[in-house]
């Protein structure tokens, strides 16, 4: 098992804030809109440095999406910022009609996704957002895993023409991807080559997959680990190449198993290479209050859950 050394832990939302600030410097067409969560989204540095390109919308997310769609007319590249819950479910119709169907170059940037939002509880812990967004024609869906990758993704989507949903989170997690790693939308990243099982993880679950890989190595199981930061379009080729070699797969995500990465992978395999698959994901449930670690343990989203899923899927493969 490869080693993934890191020197610091940081939140992915800060990666977004850093990327946005960098975009302020490099791309004069980038504008930012926020619905009263500037500090939480780490958009304050951009706001301070580029006040003429920052728009405070107040607690009015539907209006924010419409404004952003309108600003693309004239060549602006709007980045909207609020929690993932208010970036998707609350404004699904606005995104559907004014952004996706209209093909507008809006970047919907969504923080505090999933259970790791923690103590605020289920009203804020959206576990359905990836499903909603990937269902929309024209929408690209990205869920990076650490600070560096989120920063790189933020900068990459400004160069990409079309609507994007960028999902990130609140907790501090190991910042292990190289700071200079190029972010290629739609391209899976091979983290560890293996032969016994393919673990496909996205977002915060990528680090958990690495931790699981170490435990599995001690048990003599050689896991191939793939970081899928782009859920749509999905890198089907990378998935098929890996599963052809390993014969089974575990998907891991901080999202409901319905509508998430796991289902997208299952669709690819069902069509091309039917294979045993286990889903590390929430099981069609809402979350609750608690610390991020407590919640990830209770809802089965940590390294132990991945290890258990791997052991189960390998047993199924042997049947």
């Amino acid at each position, binding site marked *: 098992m490869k080693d993934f050394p890191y020197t610091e832990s940081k939140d992915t939302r800060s990666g977004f804030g850093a990327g946005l600030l960098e975009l302020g410097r490099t791309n004069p067409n980038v504008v930012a809109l926020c619905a009263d969560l500037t500090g939480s989204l780490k958009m304050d540095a951009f706001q301070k440095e580029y006040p003429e390109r920052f728009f405070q919308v107040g607690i009015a997310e539907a209006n924010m999406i*419409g*404004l952003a769609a309108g600003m693309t*007319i004239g*060549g602006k590249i709007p980045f909207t910022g609020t929690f993932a819950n208010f970036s998707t479910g609350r404004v699904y119709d606005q995104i559907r*009609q004014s952004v996706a169907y209209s093909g507008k170059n809006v970047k919907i940037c969504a923080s505090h996704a999933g259970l790791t939002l923690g103590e605020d509880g289920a009203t804020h812990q959206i576990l359905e957002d990836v499903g909603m967004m990937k269902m929309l024609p024209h929408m690209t869906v990205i869920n990076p895993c650490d600070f560096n990758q989120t920063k790189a993704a933020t900068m990459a989507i400004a160069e990409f023409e079309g609507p994007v949903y960028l999902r990130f989170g609140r907790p501090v997690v190991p910042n292990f991807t190289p700071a200079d790693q190029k972010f290629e939308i739609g391209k899976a990243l091979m983290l560890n080559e293996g032969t016994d099982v393919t673990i496909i993880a996205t977002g915060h679950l990528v680090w958990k997959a690495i931790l699981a890989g170490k435990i599995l190595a001690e048990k003599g199981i050689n896991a191939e680990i793939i970081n899928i930061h782009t859920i749509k379009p999905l890198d089907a080729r990378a998935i098929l190449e890996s599963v052809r070699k390993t014969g089974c797969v575990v998907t891991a995500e901080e999202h409901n198993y319905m509508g998430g990465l796991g289902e997208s992978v299952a669709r690819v395999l069902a069509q091309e290479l039917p294979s045993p698959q286990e889903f590390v994901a929430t099981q069609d449930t809402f979350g609750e209050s608690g610390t991020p670690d407590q919640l990830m343990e209770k809802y089965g989203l940590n390294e132990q859950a991945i290890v258990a899923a791997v052991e189960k899927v390998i047993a199924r493969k042997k049947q």
Partner: protein
Amino acid sequence: MNPFNYTPEQLHDVAHQVRRDIVRMVHAVNSGHPGGSLGCTEFLVSLYFRVMDHNPTFNMDGTQEDLFFLSNGHISPVWYSVLARSGYFDVKELATFRKLNSRLQGHPATEEGLPGIRIASGSLGQGLSVATGAAQSKKMNNDDKLVYVLMGDGELEEGQVWEAAMYAAHHKVDNLIATVDYNGQQIDGPVDAVMSLGNLRAKWEAFGWKVLHCENGNDFVQLVPVLEQAKALTGHKQPIIILMNTQMGFGVDFMMGSHKWHGVAPNDAQLEQALVQLSETLNDY
């Protein structure tokens, strides 16, 4: 400068032809929304043939030209006719309205690339936000042209409209002219019966908007001066809204003033009855 700059007489002729187009389009597919379309004919004809500085050679960004957004997208027949008659696309294409493989979708869309359309609309309440964003984009680009948006009166029941109203006043979006088609009718009946709008002028004024009123939006002699007045009031750190009284179904006697013709197409006999009242002025498609 408007590329046509028509006289009231010329506007009148265009309006007659647009009304013929509307009833023929909805009749041909036995669906669509003639009532609001007929009621807003003078408004759209005024914008495209007299008031707006626009370029029928379509460019999505609309740089250095006035923009129009139709928030109440169901009155697409009038917009399609006016766009075609002002040169955005061939009038023959009006015959494809609501048919398979057409660029003229039931509600306006950009997906098929119809010139003149900059955003999809149909799901109500979104257009004011979009127009406000486009107006701010113009400001950032140092483009001093204007942004127009039309909403239905029933549409004001959507909460997003008031989010946008609050925002545009707070951010002093003063290159924006909104208009409400105040025909008093919506699908289920009179607006006052479905969901009363109360004192609409006071509501918009309380939100910080400059409010103009047009007593009869089906009369060019009244409407054009109000639109010119709205233009003259731009640039004063306040968004502008025109509350425009119209009659649903105007120009076709049996459709006038009733919500019944909101979303119903005329049958063969009714079409004939309507066309008798509307002279052919610019040739049918």
